[in-house]
């Protein structure tokens, strides 16, 4: 796989025959992925989910005038109605349309998946690559630190991060990022949550990358880079990391559902996304309180989330088989 990538896109001239273009690792993997029906199913569901969640609220507002925070003026309408033509998923306690809320919650849940995974990717890949490349005592200390963080319940770390950087102490760049999406204290807190989740989910990624780098760092191309005087950071990030990308991508696709679950869990406990914002997790948590009388309040957000996670897991599995057909971990 590694060698394949080295000759990626390279044209291999035959002695006197016609010139044959080599297929790249990525093209190969893509072909294998498309053959995997379950992975394609996952990809399609996720694509649909992303589209519905992004433009769905606009279309709904245009068709029916309903928004996630629209509370009916008529007092008799302020109660939870079962699914109907007007409200396909029913309404919540305040008479708000549940479909609109599930779509809006989906925006936040999917954003958790993306942003937290990117944060965990950046931290985990750099940490693992540095530990693996430097080796020896540095590696030992860095990996013991990972062990220690593993042993601390992540919920404690998340709460501390949220309270240290929350409210007034919000870092400027998080603030500007949230302003891009509308801004405000509530949104700031949500973006802070994204980063906090990313900062507790990089540990396994660091281990995966370290293992890859350990097996790569004695290869000839690294020696060649060293001999030509390439700097250490450049060797790590330009030469080694790109070659470890396969397992990283695979692990990242599996991180997405796991951070989404963690966010839902935190929101379920009341630590995560706060009203007036909602995520699938916080909607389901609200629904659990009314499960005996208004079961649709739990079923719709819960099933939507389960379907998304289901598809993401299938896609992750398919990607792993496509990128790394030899190894079959779990």
């Amino acid at each position, binding site marked *: 796989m590694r060698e394949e990538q080295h000759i990626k896109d390279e044209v291999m001239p035959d002695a006197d025959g016609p010139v044959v273009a080599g297929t790249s690792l990525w093209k190969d993997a893509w072909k294998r992925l498309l053959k995997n029906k379950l992975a394609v199913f996952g990809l399609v569901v996720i694509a649909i989910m992303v589209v519905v969640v992004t433009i769905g609220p606009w279309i709904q507002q245009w068709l029916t005038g309903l928004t996630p925070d629209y509370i009916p003026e008529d007092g008799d309408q302020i109660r939870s109605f079962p699914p109907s033509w007007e409200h396909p998923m029913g309404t919540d306690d305040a008479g708000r349309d549940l479909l609109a809320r599930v779509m809006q919650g989906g925006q936040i849940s999917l954003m958790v998946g993306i942003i937290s995974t990117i944060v965990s990717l950046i931290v985990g890949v750099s940490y693992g690559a540095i530990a693996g490349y430097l080796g020896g005592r540095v590696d030992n200390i860095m990996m013991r630190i990972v*062990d*220690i*963080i*593993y*042993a*601390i*319940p992540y*919920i*404690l*770390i998340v*709460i*501390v991060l949220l*309270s*240290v950087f929350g409210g007034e102490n919000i870092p400027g760049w998080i603030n500007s990022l949230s302003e891009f999406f509308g801004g405000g204290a509530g949104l700031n807190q949500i973006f802070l949550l994204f980063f906090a989740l990313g900062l507790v989910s990089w540990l396994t990624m660091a281990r995966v990358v370290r293992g890859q780098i350990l097996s790569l760092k004695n290869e000839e191309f690294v020696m060649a880079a060293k001999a030509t005087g390439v700097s250490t950071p450049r060797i790590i990030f330009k030469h080694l990391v790109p070659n470890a990308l396969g397992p990283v991508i695979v692990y990242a696709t599996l991180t997405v*559902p796991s951070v989404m*679950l963690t966010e*839902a*869990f935190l929101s*379920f*406990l009341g*630590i995560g996304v706060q009203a007036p914002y909602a995520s699938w*997790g916080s909607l*389901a*948590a609200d*629904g*659990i309180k009314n*499960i*005996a009388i208004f*079961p649709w309040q*739990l*079923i719709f957000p*819960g*099933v939507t*989330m*389960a*379907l998304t*996670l*289901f598809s*993401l*897991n*299938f896609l992750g*599995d398919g990607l792993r088989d496509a990128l790394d057909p030899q190894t*079959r*971990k*779990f």
Partner: protein
Amino acid sequence: MLKFILKRLLIIVPMALLVVTVTWVLIRVAPGNFYSTERSLPPAIEENIKKKYGLDQPWYIQYGTMMGNILRLDFGDSLKYQGQSVNEIIARHFPYSAILGLLAYLLALGIGLFAGIVAALKQNSAFDYGSMAAAMLGLSVPNFVLGPLLVLLFSLYLYWLPPARWGGPLYLIMPVVTLAAIYAAYIARLTRAGMLEVMRSDYIRTARAKGLKESKVLLKHALRGGIIPVVSFTGPALASLLAGTVVVEKVFAIPGLGNIFIQSVLNRDEPLILGIVAFLSILIMVANLIVDISYGFLDPRIRYE
């Protein structure tokens, strides 16, 4: 072997102390404290509280006292649950989590191993596809959705099972199933992958070539190698199961340790947080040690010198 175990047991102590130290730093770094509420206290009262809990001392003295207490395994009294020692609280709530966790572990292991082995032996059969789809479902349905759905079905519509709380064996069924689902799914996937890999290896071919019975090849040779990844997953999984899974405790109103821990974090109940963290980290490390030891029994090629 004995030397290896002793060495690992000795490492657990400094590791646990480090974990406690980091936790302590985290609690101290976060703004706010256990006694602050929305109303600010009169300065004199605040002074008294600080004096009582030694918070007026410099940080290194506070740290030293805390460490000294922990080395004597005395975590002190909870700040929130007045007059109850941390040890008492852990001893009172851990058994609930332990019983739940242990039952869920056994259930997950039984279902997972069975489904995984059969799926691997009959690769690409209907059973294989069916059980792997079920496993994927188990991984994807969050337990705070699964639990309430079970309650909805079995308690609120069918009236078969009690919906919540701690009682006879009937009360345990739904919490245990909810808790076990995701672990059973993981174990089934790991077992299947492990078995498929082992079945292709040389030593299985040798065993078959020797003319061993197929059942013997499977149970004596293949299974031992095939379940190594399962073992490395289930060690930490058992620890986290025993420590109580907050969601299940919350959904089914069970007074386990997981809920107490979340409450202690939200209450900034420092002695209780530190006590539970120390307890859990030792539990996890012992579980990992047991896993490492059992590798040697499962795979004769692994040796600890």
